[in-house]
């Protein structure tokens, strides 16, 4: 036993100043900062180990709690990932906002190509494609099913056209660009399906709002799940908590194992959610690839990016911690010794 520490023969040594100061001075005088730090770390290690062993001793109950958390986490995250995947069809969205410029019939290929190059230099234009009168006719013959009838026509009735893919899908920018392109020489007609763009933007916004609302609801549900689980653990350990408080355990000491429990639930729930998402997207991808192939596309869903996975894990741990903190803070007053 170190010098100066209270021994069985010196029980009165702690008596004197206030209780907190007495104990504090005893510890600081005899044990030093490093020993106190070691004791603090040891206390954390013991709490973490104890919480882990309690979860392991109830594997089924712990698993289902984590599974509920995983489902609650993976739903909004999965939807967000799907939306991100859909938006990666970027080219397609932008093509939906393409401006078609129909030139006068006598414009000629040389002028069309010159105009294409000029438009390509515009800051709000991502891509430009020239479709000559001959190409337009050939495509029309192929896709319309009127090939034979069109061959009977004495002249090609279709004009040369330029397809302009805008850089950004923004209504005002598009309208300005449309007006600018419309005023170019030999442009007979300029077309832009604004209604479709507005619908698209509304759909995307609705998707984002839906995911946000779902996230808020599921986060609240998740906090309740963790809070309720921790509350049950507190109830089961009520006698232990009362004894701990009677022998000098601080609120922090009482709180610590439950916070670790929340963190462990969060961690396990986060891992499970990551796995659910990874396997879920992989499973869905089979159907998506098949569907995309039917449309002649090579589109496929991308998996869970590693940074998103870690964000999910961190969020789950934080939610577990917050849920546990709320539960313990709420019940700590009721845990006074009786």
């Amino acid at each position, binding site marked *: *036993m170190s010098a100066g520490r209270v021994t069985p023969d010196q*029980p009165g040594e702690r008596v004197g100043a206030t*209780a*907190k100061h007495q104990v504090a001075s005893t510890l600081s005088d005899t044990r030093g900062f490093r020993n106190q730090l070691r004791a603090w770390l040891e206390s954390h290690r013991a709490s973490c180990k104890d919480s882990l062993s309690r979860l392991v001793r109830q594997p089924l109950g712990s698993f289902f709690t984590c599974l509920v958390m995983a489902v609650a986490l993976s739903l909004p995250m999965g939807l967000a990932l799907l939306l991100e995947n859909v938006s990666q069809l970027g080219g397609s969205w932008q093509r939906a906002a393409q401006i078609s410029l129909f030139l006068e019939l006598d414009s000629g290929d040389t002028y069309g190509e010159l105009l294409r190059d000029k438009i390509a230099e515009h800051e709000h234009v991502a891509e430009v494609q020239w479709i000559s009168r001959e190409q337009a006719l050939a495509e029309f013959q192929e896709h319309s099913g009127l090939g034979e009838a069109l061959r009977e026509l004495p002249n090609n009735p279709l004009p040369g056209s330029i397809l302009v893919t805008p850089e950004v899908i923004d209504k005002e920018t598009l309208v300005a660009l449309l007006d600018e392109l419309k005023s170019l020489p030999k442009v007979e007609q300029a077309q832009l399906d604004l209604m479709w763009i507005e619908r698209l933007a509304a759909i995307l916004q609705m998707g984002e709002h839906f995911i946000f609302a779902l996230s808020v609801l599921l986060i609240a549900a998740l906090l309740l799940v963790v809070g309720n689980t921790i509350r049950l653990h507190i109830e089961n350990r009520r006698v232990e908590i009362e004894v701990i408080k009677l022998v*000098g355990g601080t*609120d922090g000491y009482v709180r610590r194992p439950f916070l670790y429990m929340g963190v462990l639930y969060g961690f396990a729930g986060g891992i499970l959610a990551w796995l659910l998402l990874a396997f879920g997207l992989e499973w869905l991808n089979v159907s998506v690839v098949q569907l995309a192939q039917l449309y002649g596309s090579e589109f496929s869903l991308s998996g869970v990016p590693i940074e998103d996975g870690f964000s999910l894990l961190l969020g789950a741990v934080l939610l577990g911690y917050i849920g546990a903190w709320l539960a313990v803070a709420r019940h700590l007053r009721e845990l006074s010794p009786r």
Partner: protein
Amino acid sequence: MIRFEQVEKRYPNGHVGLHELSFRVRRGEFLFVTGHSGAGKSTMLRLLLAMERPTSGKLLLAGQDLAKITNSQIPFLRRQIGVVFQNHQLLFDRSVFANVALPLQILGLPQEEINQRVSLALERVSLKEKALQAPADLSTGQQQRVGIARAIVHQPALLLADEPTGNLDPRLAAEIMSVFEDINQLGTTVLIASHDLALIARMRQRMLTLQRGRLIGDGEAV
């Protein structure tokens, strides 16, 4: 060590637990508090443990006024006190050793020192060989001794016991009292609440007698 000065404890329902109680306890003293049920014995112990606060008067423990103690100071105050309950309050999901080690773990002592101190405490109550057993495997008397070992393991300045022999036969009760005497010999102040007058008389120590919250006697038990 302990000073009650006109301490009154009145509950919201009007019941008076303690009525203008005044007495002093010197450091290293051994005393009993006796009285019938509802006399105020448990209220006195609850006040000393800062589980409740006096309604009026001054209650000093080791120089600290318990009427003014802050909530954050209470755990540090309790670390100077050992408590023995009538129903032991042992944790049945852990071993005897782990039960006794609890106050030391709260203090954050190194494991090596915890092992030494727990062994010493269990030796004092003659239960060293039962360290790894579960409390449920022990007799009532042995469980009570485990409770005492837990109360003394951190060498408190004050030991409080609430009816520690209430469930024990006279032979076991005498054994437990002998353990308390040994602890007191080491300098710890011991305050025992008990209504077992025959046992108290055998101990020939100071006795406070309470009746309906009032102190009606203070002297050596005969």
